[in-house]
């Protein structure tokens, strides 16, 4: 799976959890999930579960803890699927 395709899917997963949709304009690999998208920690758990389902992977607590940006999520998915 290509990086762009994973990125697109990650953005689709994040979209319903982002309170202010304008935060998604200009979203990039550097966008911080907590700071820029203002996702709270309960929603982070939902996002991890949705990523597991969408990509058929298991995300450990340690791996989830390393995901701070959209790019971190994309890298984790590509690495786990490789």
């Amino acid at each position, binding site marked *: 799976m290509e990086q762009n395709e994973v990125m697109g899917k990650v953005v689709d997963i994040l979209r319903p959890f982002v309170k202010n949709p304008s935060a998604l304009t200009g979203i990039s690999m550097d966008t*911080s999930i*907590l700071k820029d998208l203002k996702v709270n920690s*309960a929603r982070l758990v*939902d996002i*991890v579960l949705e990523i597991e389902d969408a990509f058929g992977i298991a995300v450990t*607590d340690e791996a989830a803890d390393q995901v701070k940006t959209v790019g971190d999520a994309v890298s984790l998915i590509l690495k786990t699927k490789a």
Partner: protein
Amino acid sequence: MRRVGNDVVDLEDPAIAQTHLRERFVARVCCESERARVAGSSDPKLLLWSLFAAKEAAFKALSKSGPLVFAHRRFVVAEDLRSVSYLKQVLWLRVDVHGSCVHAVAWTDDEPPIFGVEKLEPGVDASAAARALLIQRLGGGGLTIAREPQPGSWNGYGPPKLFRDGVEVNLDISLSHDGRFVGFAADSSGAEKR
């Protein structure tokens, strides 16, 4: 230094209306004994979010002493909701329900902290409201709250710290906001750092 943490959850947030029924969410957040308690509870929604808030409060208190992986299920909440453990550390806990808001406060020492919850006025910024509530409870007078940049943290900033006339005060504090509520906890001892 005595550490405190707090967390509020707005039970009327539509996003969490059915979450207690989702086994995978419950399993990601709760250890096995907690899952059994949620499954057998007469109010599984209230119990799940009480446990969640307790774990968040404990994480906020303990993560100030050094980097900590936030794995909710490694924070184990006692059945009576009076303590929460992480590995060998045990924190005191209180969980209060105010209407449709759950507020959990966790602390590392015998003496309980001061704490509070307030409903957010529509249109008011939640971070600012939580800060204003805490400063008002501490008596105002030259107090400010700031978070210093902390590279590598989840949002680039460290935990909130209290300052009096620009000088850091040796009093641990914690802020929280969710939906229509804001909350705080603060160590009640209050000796100033020199």
